[in-house]
């Protein structure tokens, strides 16, 4: 068996090694700030070969059997002027390419006419990459630009409840998305019950969503991988930006530490409803809510081949109350938040081999603290009482990823990683001190658990011929928890066949998720708990096949794709009926049911990436259901967010030099909810002559058998520039829910004026105007 592997390995190595070749490699960056550009197109129009930059702006292009002394190279990226040079290969084999941002009013330059454009060139499918500068133009709830919510406008991506930043991707739940901030997983990506995400758009550079056809390097979640990259910081000059809005203020400062080689960026955001409300509260009571986010990133180039990045994110949500009188003081606090930090080291070993080493720490923590202090008016003895509940997860990880580009026919990625996670499903601390009593006890109904995971992956993107490319690979994971090991080999295949200008793509991916999220509600609550798979509650597992067509138009300016997918999901969990959310039970495993799910559908996506008018149209026709032996009498039932039709339209238009207009419209079939078919009297025994008890019970015949009304909403915003260019100052005026649609938030039973029972609908957000001002310096 081993011999077979070796033969295969050597065969493959001999296939990928190339004699008489010339390689050009380099980094692509923004000329004004030195920011490395992700996914920039590098193309030789004469030989019609090309590649694109990786997550660190690196590319490598090898010319096979090449005898000429020079090549022609065009580098293009949305929002930047094309870079075009004839290069003498012997002279410059490793280059730094600086792209000039496009002039404001110039209509966009198009990608080289011969280039296929990203979408038709790439083997990968089900991937959407949107520059943050495009997402940031979108109108937003209360003016808070939110990249995660902008992703909800993409086909295959659905929002949950109104206003929620949860992402439901191809029929999966928000727990099945791996959200990586500079490589570190963010375990709870929402603020204020999901109305805002934790990502401050000022700090971000790029967002990439992968919802299927997962390349081998990804693993750990069933539904999607969302890679969010923070800006590196301007390494040319000191820049700043401050914004003030209805809900929050933001601040960003970036600049070189040593010009051209090291830079920093620091951003902060804080909401201030609590501060504004404080003057209106009674003297003896304070309270409120706020959240803040801090992002910091440092990077330093030690040489052309070594670069180090340090990224830190810290966010906190806090509810607090305090009331005091002469003899007592009560305080209450709910705190939750993430901390992530990563150290990454880019090493360009040679022109064909690039590596990134990552050390990462991520923590999510939720705590409730209640204190009570009373002083006896009689003898002045003070008694204090403290109750503290905390839960959360910690993750320490390390990984190494390699990009090896031996020839234009191969792009090999391989790597290894390990992570060590600590799960704290909930602990209570009680402390009491005072007249003769002293108590300090810690209650741990669910023991803290530790789990280790190791991953290895390898994959090769093979250009078999001009019309056929295939990406073959495997991702393996070994998960170990409480002396129980789970090993998995997850094959990943995707291919692209060119038929004229159309790319026919197909993919198959298996994914395994070794952690579960316990959540009973459809809104993202801070009490949601992450827990490891156990011997009883096994890892989640999915298989997804997808088939699609893709094509670029107008020289790569417009992308069109249509994709069909089918996904099966196994070992997914749901809380048992009636179990509630705080995980303090003797054993959480007794509180969940295990079942399966499936999702299938078709997605259409038309995307104009830049220009005076830009935006996209997305339509999804989909089905998603679940089957649990112990729910709904074992019969399949619609997933709550099973959405037959989903439309997302985003449109940006430059009205004039000083005004930008942006609008979005969303439409979605209503959520599937459970409403009773009937009610009936329920009684209790009459013990020894006690009164007869009458209650009313509801009779459910079908879980999620009722559809809420459809959801649709139009938002728009205007940006009025008082100064435009790299240092921009502008006012943003926006309208959320512009035609004041009463969208369903939830239903309940009530009586009408004549006492007859009716179903009533509650709506959440009416038309909400927003205003903010942003100033750069």
């Amino acid at each position, binding site marked *: 068996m081993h011999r077979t592997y070796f033969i295969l390995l050597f065969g493959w190595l001999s296939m990928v090694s190339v004699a008489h070749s010339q390689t050009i490699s380099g980094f692509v960056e923004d000329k004004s700030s030195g920011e490395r550009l992700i996914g920039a197109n590098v193309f030789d129009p004469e030989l019609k070969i090309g590649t694109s930059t990786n997550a660190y702006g690196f590319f490598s292009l090898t010319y096979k059997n090449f005898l000429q002394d020079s090549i022609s190279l065009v580098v293009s990226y949305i929002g930047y002027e094309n870079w075009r040079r004839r290069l003498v290969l012997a002279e410059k084999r490793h280059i730094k390419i600086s792209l000039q941002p496009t002039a404001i009013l110039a209509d966009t330059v198009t990608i080289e006419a011969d280039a296929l454009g990203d979408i038709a060139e790439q083997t990968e499918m089900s991937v959407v990459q949107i520059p943050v500068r495009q997402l940031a133009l979108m109108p937003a709830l209360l003016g808070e630009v939110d990249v995660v919510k902008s992703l909800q406008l993409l086909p295959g991506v659905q929002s949950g409840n109104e206003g929620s930043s949860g992402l439901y991707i191809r029929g999966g739940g928000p727990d099945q998305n791996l959200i990586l901030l500079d490589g570190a997983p963010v375990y709870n990506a929402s603020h204020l019950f999901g109305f805002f995400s934790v990502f401050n758009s000022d700090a971000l550079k790029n967002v990439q969503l992968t919802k299927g056809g997962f390349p081998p390097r990804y693993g750990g979640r069933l539904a999607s991988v969302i890679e969010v990259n923070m800006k590196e910081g301007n390494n040319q000059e000191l820049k700043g930006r401050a914004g003030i809005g209805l809900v929050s203020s933001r601040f960003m400062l970036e600049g070189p530490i040593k010009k051209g080689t090291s830079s920093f960026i620091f951003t902060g955001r804080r909401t201030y409803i609590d501060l504004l409300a404080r003057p209106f509260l009674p003297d003896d009571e304070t309270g409120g809510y706020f959240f803040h986010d801090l992002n910091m990133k440092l990077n330093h180039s030690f040489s052309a081949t070594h670069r180090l990045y340090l990224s830190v994110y810290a966010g906190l949500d806090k509810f607090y109350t305090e009331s005091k009188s002469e003899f007592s003081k009560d305080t209450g606090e709910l705190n939750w938040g993430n901390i992530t930090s990563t150290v990454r080291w880019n090493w360009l070993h040679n022109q064909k081999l690039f590596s990134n080493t990552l050390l990462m720490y991520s923590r999510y923590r939720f705590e409730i603290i209640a204190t009570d202090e009373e002083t006896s008016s009689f003898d002045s003895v003070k008694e204090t009482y403290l109750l503290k509940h905390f839960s959360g997860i910690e993750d320490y990880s390390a990984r190494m990823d390699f990009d090896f580009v031996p020839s234009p026919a191969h792009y090999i990625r391989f790597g290894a990683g390990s992570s060590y996670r600590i799960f704290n499903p909930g602990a209570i601390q009680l402390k009491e001190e005072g007249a003769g009593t002293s108590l300090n*006890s810690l209650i741990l109904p669910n023991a803290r658990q530790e789990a280790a995971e190791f991953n290895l992956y390898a994959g090769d993107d093979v250009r078999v011929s001009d019309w056929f490319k295939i990406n073959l690979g495997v991702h393996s994971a070994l998960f170990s928890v409480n002396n129980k090991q789970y090993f998995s080999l997850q094959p990943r295949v995707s291919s692209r066949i060119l038929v004229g200008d159309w790319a026919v793509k197909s993919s198959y991916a298996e994914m395994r998720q070794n952690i579960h999220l316990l959540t009973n509600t459809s809104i993202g609550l801070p009490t949601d708990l992450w827990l490891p798979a156990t011997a009883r509650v096994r890892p989640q597992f999915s298989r997804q096949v997808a088939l699609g067509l893709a094509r670029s138009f107008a020289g790569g300016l417009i992308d069109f794709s249509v994709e069909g997918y089918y996904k099966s999901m196994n070992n997914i969990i749901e809380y048992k009926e009636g179990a509630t959310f705080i995980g303090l039970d003797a054993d959480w495993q007794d509180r969940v049911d295990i079942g399966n799910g499936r999702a299938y559908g078709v997605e259409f996506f038309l995307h104009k990436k830049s220009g005076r008018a830009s935006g996209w149209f997305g339509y999804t026709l989909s089905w998603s259901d679940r089957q649990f032996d112990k729910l709904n009498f074992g019969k399949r039932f619609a997933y709550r967010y099973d959405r037959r039709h989903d439309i997302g339209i985003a449109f940006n238009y430059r009205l004039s030099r000083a005004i930008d207009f942006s609008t979005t419209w969303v439409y979605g079939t209503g959520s599937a909810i459970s409403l*009773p078919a009937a009610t*009936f009297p*329920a009684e209790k025994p009459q013990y020894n002559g006690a009164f007869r008890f009458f209650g009313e019970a509801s*009779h459910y015949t079908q879980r999620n058998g009722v559809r809420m009304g459809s959801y649709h909403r139009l938002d728009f915003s205007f940006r009025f520039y008082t100064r435009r260019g790299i240092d921009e100052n502008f006012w943003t005026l926006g309208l959320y829910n512009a035609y004041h649609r009463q969208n369903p938030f939830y239903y309940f039973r009530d009586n009408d004026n004549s006492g007859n029972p009716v179903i009533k609908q509650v709506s959440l957000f009416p038309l909400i105007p927003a205003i903010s001002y942003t100033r750069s310096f």
Partner: protein
Amino acid sequence: MVSQRKTLAIFLVLVVFSLSACEDFWEPRSIVTNLPEHQPVLVINSFINPDSVFEVSVAKSRAFLAPPEYPFITDATVTIFESGNRVAELFHTSDGLYRAINHRPRIGATYELNVSAENFAPVKAMVTIPFPVKIDSVTVGTATRFGTNTTLCFQDPPGEDNYYQLLLFTIDSFAEMDTVLSITYFFSSDAVLRKPDDFEDESYYEDDAFFDDALFDGDFYDLDITFFDYFPPREMFVVLLTTSESYYNFRKSFDGQSATEDNPFAEPVPVFTNIENGLGVFAGYSSFISSLR
């Protein structure tokens, strides 16, 4: 080119225009939705025990949005069988309550209930009366301001699933009235009784507590509870019921449904039923009483 001033003016007109329609936005409004269809069925509520004659409440269900009406069925035929033999015919007393003249269930016996009424599909159900479990000892601690800690010791029958219900009663005597029996509240931090969702280290029971023997099957178990004495102290006693599984499931699910019905985001809990072609429960229990004070 569009001027900033003109765009701003259009924007503001839109805002003012739309805000004028804002007043009733949050007022819940009636909507029409296609609920699952429902044909009314017979609803049984019956909790038979050896201390009382057979008693069955018969009512009907109504579609979720049907107007409220008197729910009880007064002209049903209610029959109890044991091993295929008719044991008792029950007669209507009031408000859908049917009672046997003098037949009482026997401990350990299995009964089948048949109920039929005009315009409804006939329903049937079965239950076995469980054996009572004796409280071997009651240890009452000293009363403090944190209550009186009490330990009840009993032995769980081994090798079978047992379901329990615990109640505390006080007897109030009034000069001008008969004695009045009232259910009283208690607390417990016992692993068996602690509610999973309580933040506190002990759970509060307003009337009764349900539990099964999953944690102590076949063992002697010391169950700890805390009650509060009245002042002046009154006569109190504790009742340990052994119940049929149907009773346990019915009450657990009904309490679960009641607890989540106001939360529009929680998945609702269906209420357990063991009534074939109908709804409700046909349950049995037997009890053991012990004095506390």
